[in-house]
């Protein structure tokens, strides 16, 4: 290091050391913008393919269609024996029920683990954490046989009922972490005043926990909306199909013939997820950052 640069470095206030010179930060921005475009390109291309005239889809890699043609959406929507409206409705019903089940059942369980004292609590909590590690493949086949025997195959029950039994240990864990951060004085005071555990849960914990409940609800909605494996196993009648099964059927039945319709319907299935992302970005990203949710 030469004399001058050393003195300049020393003269800088410490917080400035991490700041880049203008050219360096321009280079980083340029790289990040290029990377962003690369990341988004496939998605943008799909959206643009969905509004192109059919003959133009594969002729260019450009993102801007020469003219907007929405006929792909019409063809795609009605391209199967059952319309995509039906699939959307089924997905919506399942997703809303799953969100409800997860929020209610997981918050009840988490409240017990985080705030109530009872014999065996630590034992059950350890078991609950253990279930986080078990891959679903282990329980898959007996569960399928069980639901088949109950006559639940081809209904939404196998996809929804387990959620009301707090089967998503991950959300329990998330809520336990959050509940533990709420000051104990609150429920101790309420208990002194003779509040029951139920009232404390309902009147104090839930209202204070809206951020974590919302995070759980949003992830739960998106994952259920995107779920392919569950519906693939339990739903065999096209009238009960979710959007993901509908899309897959559309791929198989029209294969190479109707790319426009395929991309149009693909785009539509992504729209709800995209809007959730847009509105709840902060919650989603904080959820990932603090808990390490995967996917």
């Amino acid at each position, binding site marked *: 290091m030469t004399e001058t640069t050393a003195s300049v470095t020393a003269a800088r206030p410490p917080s400035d050391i991490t700041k880049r010179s203008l050219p360096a930060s321009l280079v*980083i921005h340029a790289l990040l913008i290029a990377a962003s475009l690369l990341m988004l390109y496939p998605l943008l291309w799909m959206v643009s393919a969905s509004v192109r005239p059919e003959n133009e889809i594969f002729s260019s890699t450009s993102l801007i269609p020469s003219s907007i043609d929405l006929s792909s959406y019409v063809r795609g929507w009605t391209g199967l024996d059952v319309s995509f409206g039906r699939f959307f409705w089924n997905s919506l019903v399942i997703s809303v029920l799953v969100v409800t089940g997860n929020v209610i059942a997981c918050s009840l369980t988490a409240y017990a683990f985080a705030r109530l004292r009872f014999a065996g609590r630590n034992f059950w909590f350890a078991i609950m954490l253990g279930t986080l590690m078990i891959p679903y493949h282990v329980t898959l086949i007996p569960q399928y046989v069980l639901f088949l025997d109950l006559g639940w195959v081809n209904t939404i029950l196998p996809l929804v009922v387990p959620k009301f039994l707090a089967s998503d240990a991950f959300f329990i864990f998330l809520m336990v972490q959050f509940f533990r951060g709420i000051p104990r004085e609150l429920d101790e005071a309420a208990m002194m005043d003779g509040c029951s555990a139920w009232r404390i*849960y309902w009147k104090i914990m839930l209202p204070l926990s809206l951020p974590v409940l919302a995070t759980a609800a949003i992830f739960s909605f998106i994952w259920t909306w995107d779920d392919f494996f569950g519906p693939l196993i339990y739903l065999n009648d096209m009238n009960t199909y979710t959007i993901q099964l509908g899309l897959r059927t559309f791929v198989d039945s029209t294969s190479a013939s109707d790319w426009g319709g395929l991309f149009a319907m693909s785009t539509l299935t992504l729209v709800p997820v995209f809007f959730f992302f847009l509105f709840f970005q902060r919650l989603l990203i904080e959820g990932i950052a603090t808990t390490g949710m995967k996917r």
Partner: protein
Amino acid sequence: MSNAMRTPAGAISVERYQGAVAEGRFRRLWNANAPGYLFLLPWLVGFFGLTLGPALISLYLSFTDYDMLQSPRWVGMANYVRIATADPKFSAAMDVTLTYVVFSVPFKLTFALLVAMALNRGLRGLTVYRAIFYLPSLLGGSVAIAVLWRQLFASDGLVNAALSQFGIEGPSWISHPNYSIYTLVALSVWQFGSPMIIFLAGLRQIPQDMYEAASLDGASKFRQFYKITLPLLTPVIFFNAVVQTIEAFKAFTPAFIISGGTGGPINSTLFYTLYLYQEAFGNFRMGYASALAWILVVIIAIFTAFSFLTSRYWVHYDD
């Protein structure tokens, strides 16, 4: 009770007294524990009915032949022996899955770390970049993205159209057994957003004054990365690596959609879970599929245990 009738009024019989004590103890136990267990009730029902019970049954089924039409027939170790010695599809699936894990996880984590470091400089527009890089992670598991990927890497797909601009004639990536698995690796790497966000959170925990001190001592950027960032980030790297590897072992949807459920061409995208699905719900070999499931559990458990055991040599926690 006859005993009670003989005692004078106002006196309490021994039985009654003991009964009252027992009842009191019971009431106290009940009062202390009932709320907890009532809140836990849905979870307990789910745990026994949907997790523990099925897991035990699945273990039992793995020693049987079971096609769902007739009751399970005990075959001892036969399923496991066949998996280990006489099932070429099992070894193909293992091969494909390990290839996927070995290629997708390191690339994904490297990209995630590089981008996180680029973003962790107090740049303008951080939230926009972060959102853009995270978006594919959120959409990636859906059928629509798998469909899109199938088109991207088709012989007349976008990737080849882009290559042809440089005069390169690309192969049909998804229908060539040598390349098909790497299109799925690419799809997984494209979704580096969620580990990236975890890295970003981890980078923020590193005290800035460490870099300031190091740079006053004249340490180069590379040396700072190697001596400060990397060691302090090892807990997060470890976490991301374990989570992503387990996820990679369990991957299913993209392989299913891209290969049309076959795991082809020539089993080159036959992910372990896809093979399990085919055996269970295509061939109704429920016993055999249960054995496959348990082997997957054991593999994941061994991998996780191994990671935790080796972690003491390279993961640094501040104490």
